[in-house]
């Protein structure tokens, strides 16, 4: 199976920590040059970059807020000048503002939708024309099991992640004729800073519902992304790969 990404340029949003970090490292390991996007954690992003460089790869940390159109365009331009035009886009940046709907403020709703959903729209728009011209592209949107199962306290997050599935399928149809595939990966309960916030008691209940009996690691999500980005996945588009230990089937 050909999982070699040599010569390809990838942009991973929200790549300084958690699943995004693991994806950036895995894409680099497969040979891609990687744009490591971050919003605030510049130190963490630089650590990812230096790790990639130490292993003989190429990477660049680029700071931009995915929900700000101007910043996104600037970041993508900078990446293009340094590493080259983006062939692989991984829309991974995501935030949570958990609370019951009755207590949810409009700002909580808007902030989550802005990063998780509008961010994917803006980043895709910034790289799509180039992909169309080159007749090649891989867009991989990181959704969540919550998009499929729902979760108390996460109406905003679930809505944004479910919306990414509809986005994925519609865009897959729009650009298929240009050699661009668009897919989604829906992780389950993965050990990251995001899930570290979950109270221990709830975590125990969650784990008891996972057929594989444990929480997943970011490094168990990234291989699905590398596969979708590779030549091996050339006939797969508009699909969702669930990486969740079986918690949702």
């Amino acid at each position, binding site marked *: 199976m050909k999982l070699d990404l040599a010569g390809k340029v990838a942009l991973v949003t929200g790549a300084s920590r958690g699943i995004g970090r693991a994806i950036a490292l895995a894409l680099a390991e497969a040979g891609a040059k990687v744009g490591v996007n971050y919003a605030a954690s510049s130190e963490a992003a630089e650590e990812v970059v230096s790790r990639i460089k130490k292993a003989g790869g190429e990477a660049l940390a680029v700071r931009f807020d995915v929900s700000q159109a101007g910043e996104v365009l600037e970041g993508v331009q900078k990446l293009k000048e340094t590493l080259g035009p983006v062939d692989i886009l991984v829309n991974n940046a995501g935030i949570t503002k958990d609370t019951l709907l009755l207590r949810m403020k409009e700002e909580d709703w808007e902030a989550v939708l802005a990063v998780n959903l509008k961010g994917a729209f803006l980043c895709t728009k910034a790289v799509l*024309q180039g992909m*169309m011209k080159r007749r090649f592209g891989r867009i991989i949107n990181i959704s969540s099991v919550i998009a499929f199962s729902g979760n108390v306290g996460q109406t905003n997050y679930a809505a944004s992640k479910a919306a990414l599935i509809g986005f994925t399928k519609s865009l897959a149809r*729009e*650009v298929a*004729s*240009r050699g661009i595939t668009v897919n989604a990966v829906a992780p389950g309960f993965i050990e990251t800073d995001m899930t570290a916030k979950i109270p221990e008691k709830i975590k125990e209940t969650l784990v008891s519902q996972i057929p594989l009996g444990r929480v997943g690691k970011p490094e168990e999500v990234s291989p699905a992304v590398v596969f979708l980005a590779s030549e091996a996945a050339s006939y797969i588009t508009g699909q969702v790969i669930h990486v969740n230990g079986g918690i949702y089937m």
Partner: protein
Amino acid sequence: MSVEEKVIEIIVEKLNVSRDQVKPEASFIDDLGADSLDLVELVMAMEEAFGMEISDEEAEKLRTVKDVIDYVKSKVGE
């Protein structure tokens, strides 16, 4: 370069067709083999080349080479 020449040049490049295929009455979809994505790309290229904005409603009316040449001329003068 005249507006007409520039428009034709962009069409040749974007649709990957030969120059003599780009006759005034040629329809993008029926004669030049364009699909809906090609048309969007073409409109975006015109916008960039002539520094103007073409609304979706206006773009929909641009079916032939002549439509585009007339439209661009009416906007930028010449």
